[in-house]
């Protein structure tokens, strides 16, 4: 591993999405030594995931919803006072000489370390994994993954897509696939239209965020015009195929919330895109020792923070989805707040203008969180529905090949399993390459259900360095 740079950075920002970009925008130009780390090859995060620098895309993310974010991205990306580390994974955070911290990184040329006085962790989120029979077949992807292929890599990664989930993002992605020349078999929502309508009764939120609703209505109009069925109150039952997806079965959900597999109908498709919501990337900040709390509606493990967006660990700030999944606009405001909080603690930017800036941000956040709350209500998925989707041989832990039946039988010999870590040691759930990112939420909820304990008592799988897998060869000097 390459040794530290001699200098100690003022701030390392993990994640160049909306939160990180807004923080850079606030911190830049003040003579601070700032390093920004992102696994992707360009700034923007998942929402503004850019085409490769070698591409030219004339209609990239057109539309009024994205103008502000694109402008911020352009401004920040052209800054020359920032040390960018793209294609680089953070492996872990350590205390060096207190209060200096050491960041372990793995970049295109291998592993190296950085020293810094403060860290802002803004790692974003990923699509909530939902297990059902056939979900490991090639061709079943997350809706976010499909969208990234379309908007960044500029390919339509399949022929005919079936979207299934509960989050309105799937409407947007279906629309983008269609516009790019792909075919959509159907968009399936688990909630009933009545539930959606009930959630939409909050007229004040509708009024304040009318642009988003108008754009969504336009998308719905285009899907209808193209003859794409948008089906409510239905769930995916399974994906079919031998070596890849060739179809998907969809079932109605009864009044009692029970799926009726006798009434399943089959859609021909070669891709299934899943869109049930999002989980924050909480591993790094938990490894760094920050206190985390379970909030299923907010996305699972989220990180409590103070008014300056500082976590329970001094000098480790958080912003964006990691504080509760609420979208890009909330993330950007929190990124600014974290930057201002950091500056005021450093004794910089403590005047009246800073106080006014913070008050403005907090007032915008209040309105934006109103919208995020509405979206959470609107896209709520009952756990009982997800439980019904499992058959005995459905994989829960995809990496280690552990099934729904294994989850039951491994729990059975000991009624005393009451931590996710204990269960992991005995069962291998979560021991694979994804380190539990695809099964941990499920295991924690199952253990909580079975033991009668709170999810906070059961815990998640402990996160350790490296928080993402690294080859030993990458750690050795080249």
């Amino acid at each position, binding site marked *: 591993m390459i040794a530290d740079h001699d200098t100690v950075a003022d701030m390392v920002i993990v994640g160049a999405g909306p939160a990180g970009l807004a923080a850079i925008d606030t911190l830049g130009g003040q003579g601070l030594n700032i390093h920004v780390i992102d696994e992707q090859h360009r700034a923007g995060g998942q929402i503004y995931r850019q085409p490769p620098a070698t591409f030219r895309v004339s209609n990239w993310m057109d539309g009024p919803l994205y103008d502000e974010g694109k402008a911020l991205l352009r401004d920040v990306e052209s800054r020359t006072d920032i040390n960018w580390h793209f294609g680089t994974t953070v492996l872990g955070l350590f205390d060096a000489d207190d209060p200096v911290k050491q960041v372990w990184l793995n970049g295109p040329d291998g592993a190296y370390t950085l020293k810094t006085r403060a860290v802002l962790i803004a790692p974003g989120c990923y699509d909530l994994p939902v297990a059902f029979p056939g979900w490991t077949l090639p061709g079943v*992807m*997350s809706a976010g*993954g499909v969208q*990234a292929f379309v908007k960044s890599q500029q390919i339509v*990664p399949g022929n005919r897509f079936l979207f299934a989930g509960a989050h309105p993002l799937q409407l947007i992605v279906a629309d983008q696939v269609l516009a790019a020349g792909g075919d959509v078999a159907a968009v399936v929502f688990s909630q009933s239209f009545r539930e959606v309508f009930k959630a939409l009764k909050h007229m004040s939120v509708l009024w304040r965020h009318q642009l988003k609703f108008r754009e969504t209505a336009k998308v719905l109009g285009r899907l209808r015009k193209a003859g794409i069925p948008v089906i409510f109150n239905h769930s995916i039952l399974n994906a079919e195929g031998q070596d*890849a997806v060739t179809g998907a079965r969809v079932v109605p959900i009864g009044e009692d919330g029970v799926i009726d597999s006798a009434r399943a109908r089959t859609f021909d498709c070669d891709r299934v895109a899943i869109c049930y919501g999002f989980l924050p990337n909480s591993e790094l900040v938990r490894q760094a020792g920050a206190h985390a709390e379970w909030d299923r509606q907010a996305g699972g493990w989220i990180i409590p923070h103070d008014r300056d967006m500082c976590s329970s660990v001094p000098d480790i700030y958080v912003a964006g989805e990691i504080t509760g999944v609420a979208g890009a606009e909330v993330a950007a405001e929190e990124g600014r707040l974290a930057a201002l909080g950091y500056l005021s603690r450093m004794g910089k930017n403590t005047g009246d203008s800073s106080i006014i800036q913070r008050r403005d941000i907090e007032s915008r956040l209040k309105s934006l969180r109103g919208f995020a709350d509405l979206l959470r209500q609107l896209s709520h998925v009952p756990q009982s529905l997800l439980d019904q989707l499992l058959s005995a041989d459905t994989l829960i832990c995809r*990496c280690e090949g552990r099934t729904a039946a294994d989850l039951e039988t491994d729990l059975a010999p000991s009624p005393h399993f009451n931590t996710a870590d204990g269960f992991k040691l005995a069962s291998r759930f979560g021991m694979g390459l994804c380190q539990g990112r695809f099964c941990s939420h499920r295991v924690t909820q199952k253990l909580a259900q079975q033991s009668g304990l709170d999810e906070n008592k059961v815990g998640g799988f402990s996160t350790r360095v490296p928080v993402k897998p690294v080859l030993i060869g990458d750690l050795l000097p080249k």
Partner: protein
Amino acid sequence: MTHRMNNHTSRGRAISIELEGRPLSCFEGETIATVLISHNILTFRHDKSGKPRGPVCNMGVCYECMVDVKQPNGDFARRRACMTLVADAMSIRINNVEKTR
């Protein structure tokens, strides 16, 4: 069909990578995942029971898209196909049935 979008897009230099002896045409800036999918290759690896697996999250989280990429010293290193950019004459393998437990 799976296809590259061309109406509003111009790409980087046309290059080629090699998959187990088979040349695959592609463009600078594309990820290994994009190139394989564009050539209608959806099985990126096999799991312990020999079942096919393909990319899921396309953002470096699921580790389902791991392929072997040839290194300058001749060894193969496992990399996420969705996070790894292609380079001209890059050599990859996908038939890496997992042997370890």
